[in-house]
């Protein structure tokens, strides 16, 4: 059997189970009554999610300072999102953060997870905990801690100077080119744990026979990774990407704590702009417009990720 056949065999082996549940039809009560069961949850969802969302969309069409009567602004606030270079830059920064929050942790996480999975190291639960630990700490605490590490006489610079890289030492968060990657790197450090643990769980479920079969076919560790491991954890990758991409796009606390959007505007992000406009500047309509656009972007991207993962998985 070639490795491709192995993969195909694995896929078809799950399909009879799926077919069986389908042919039995939806179990339980008929549709109309089923909706009744959904009603309580839907009411809560509508009151705390749909209504505020609708209200935000509505406010975004007004020019409103938060307490006097609003004036109709039509799509002006949305036009501003597109035309204001500072706001456009904020969305651009969010996309850079996606690389640091999602892409980088995924690459590192895949490597880490397959090493931990293959090596069958002793004390695996310990390593898993250590890697996952950043996720447990509140983002505000992480921000404060990294702010110290990045300080002009902080540990990062001490380390660089200790190994003779004095020319690289700088006030990381105050440097126009280094600030955004520096903030992004905190995100990488934070998300690697989540991604690795998710992928480890996925890899743990891959039946050993698949690897055996691949090895009999003469596949090395690299071939094994691409032919067996990677396709098997596609679902976990989709989940990891969705979570991390959303985390990247809605970043607020980290920027608020570390740089407040500075130096200049070089680390401003949409969520920070929403807060700033709504609570500091009294431009609630404009804040709502930025929030709605951000919600749409997050929706489209995460919808895209799940669709791609589903189609290729089917």
């Amino acid at each position, binding site marked *: 059997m070639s490795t491709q056949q192995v993969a195909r065999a694995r896929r078809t082996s799950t399909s009879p189970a799926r077919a069986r549940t389908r042919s039995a039809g939806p179990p339980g009560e008929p549709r109309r009554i089923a909706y009744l069961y959904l009603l309580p949850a839907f009411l809560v969802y*509508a009151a705390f999610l*749909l*209504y505020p*969302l*609708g*209200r935000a*969309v*509505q*406010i975004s069409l*007004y020019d*409103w*300072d*938060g*307490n*006097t*009567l*609003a004036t*109709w602004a039509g799509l002006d606030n949305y036009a501003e999102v597109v035309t204001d270079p500072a706001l456009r830059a904020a969305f651009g920064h969010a996309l850079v953060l996606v690389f640091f929050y999602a892409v980088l942790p995924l690459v590192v996480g895949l490597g880490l997870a397959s090493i931990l999975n293959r090596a069958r190291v002793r004390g695996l639960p310990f390593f898993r905990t250590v890697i996952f630990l950043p996720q447990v700490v509140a983002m505000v605490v992480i921000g404060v801690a990294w*702010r110290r590490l*990045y*300080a*002009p006489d902080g540990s990062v610079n001490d380390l660089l100077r200790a190994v003779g890289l004095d020319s690289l030492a*700088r*006030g*990381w*968060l*105050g*440097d*126009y080119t280094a600030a955004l990657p520096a903030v992004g790197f905190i995100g990488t450090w934070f998300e690697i744990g989540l991604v690795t643990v998710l992928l480890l769980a996925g890899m743990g479920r891959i039946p050993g026979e698949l690897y055996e079969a691949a090895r009999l076919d003469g596949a090395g560790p690299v071939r094994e990774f691409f032919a067996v491991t990677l396709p098997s954890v596609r679902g976990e990758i989709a989940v990891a990407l969705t979570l991390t991409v959303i985390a990247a796009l809605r970043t607020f606390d980290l920027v608020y704590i570390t*740089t*407040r*959007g*500075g*130096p*200049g*505007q070089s680390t401003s992000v949409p969520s920070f702009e929403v807060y*700033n406009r709504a*609570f*500091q*500047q*009294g*431009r*609630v*309509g404009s804040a709502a417009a930025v929030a709605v656009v951000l919600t749409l972007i997050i929706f489209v991207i995460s919808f895209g990720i799940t669709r791609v993962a589903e189609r290729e998985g089917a």
Partner: protein
Amino acid sequence: MRSRPTTLLAAAGLIGAVALSACAPGSNSDSGKSSAPTGQVSTDPSKMGDVTLTVWDQEIRGGQKAQITELNKEFQAKYPNIKLDRVSRSTDDLNTTLKLALSGNTPPDVFQANNGRPQMGSFVKAGQLVPLDRYADAYGWKDRYPESVRQYSSYSTDGKTFGTGSLYGLPQVGEVVGIYVNKAKLQKAGVSMPQTWDQFQQSLATLKAKGELPLVLGNLDKWPAIHVFGTVQAQNVQPDAIRKLGFGQKGGSWTTPENTKAAQTLVDWVDKGYLSKDVNGLGYDPAWQGFAKGKGVYLIAGTWLQADLGKQMGNDVTFVLPPSASGSPAATGGTGIPWAISSKSKHPDAAAAYINFITSKDAMAVLAKTDNLPIADTAAQQAPNALGKDVFAAFGTAVQKNALVPYLDYATPTMSDTIGAALQDLLAKKATPQQFLDTLEKDYSSFVSSNQ
């Protein structure tokens, strides 16, 4: 397609939600009383009957908490018929919740509202605050609080003009930005205390030549440089011109030779290495903490650091108003967050009596005792230590000589961001003084023209 019913349902829900909330935002908040109340006010709290006052404040840390706790206790003991229902929040929490509370039906009677346009200005515009002029006359506030202090909580009744007009709030404490000097290091370098702005600039050069860090500044948080620039500007630009710009009143201009000179001075300081290295990468707290441990000779900062620096540096530190170029001092300054009364309050007289109590002569003594900077009768107070004495004297002089000019970020709702980012650009030499001033002028003039 599997997802269609859910998509449809979500869309229907969204449309329904929009329809439910169809009236314009802000339409349910009636704009309070349109005309200011007139007539006699009652100033004897013991004759006001049984009253409950809801008070929202942000006096939650150290000396602030100590003073309000003591004053509330005294007030309750003296006037048992007035019950205080105190709600304390952090400054940020108060900032984000006050707007909603005031547009609701049961706002607090007395609360602290930030001086600037996004808070007090917008409350005045919405008719949510009681003008305090009648109470000021009845209690004689205008004798104890000079114009230079009252300007920070004065607005025109339509809320459009800041810095003049009716009084809408009364602060307990004052603030002024001056220079903390490490006396020991200054002496060691053989430099005498500068008396004029020129001498101050010369001393920067001397200190640098002797290998000292002349001026500590940590500007990672964006706002600290506003105080340094304000200090430099006050020695180059007429106070009235700064007030126009700072309060966002019409008729001012940023793009003047005097402002250019101020901005150029700051750039020169960067070029000559007078400021901390990596100035935009250093945090505000690490900067002043470093100064307290003996790093640097000067620190341009506000009186709010008095308690901490006094404790750590003892007699090595002093505080002075910026030595002036013209002979009459000028310094950036302002007030603590002023106390205001809701126009929906059922007991405005009792609320005013409470504000009068916590700003009275006796209250000022309590404030001084608890490490705060009392805003009125400052020079007459007993300071807690040597540095406190210098700070009280400096603020007293500033008020007496009408030397206070406003924080520059008061000017427009967006100015805090604009000037914070622009100063980082200026210090990092991403912008020339001319570009820096153009950025500020654009923010200022577009606000002034839309605020007619």
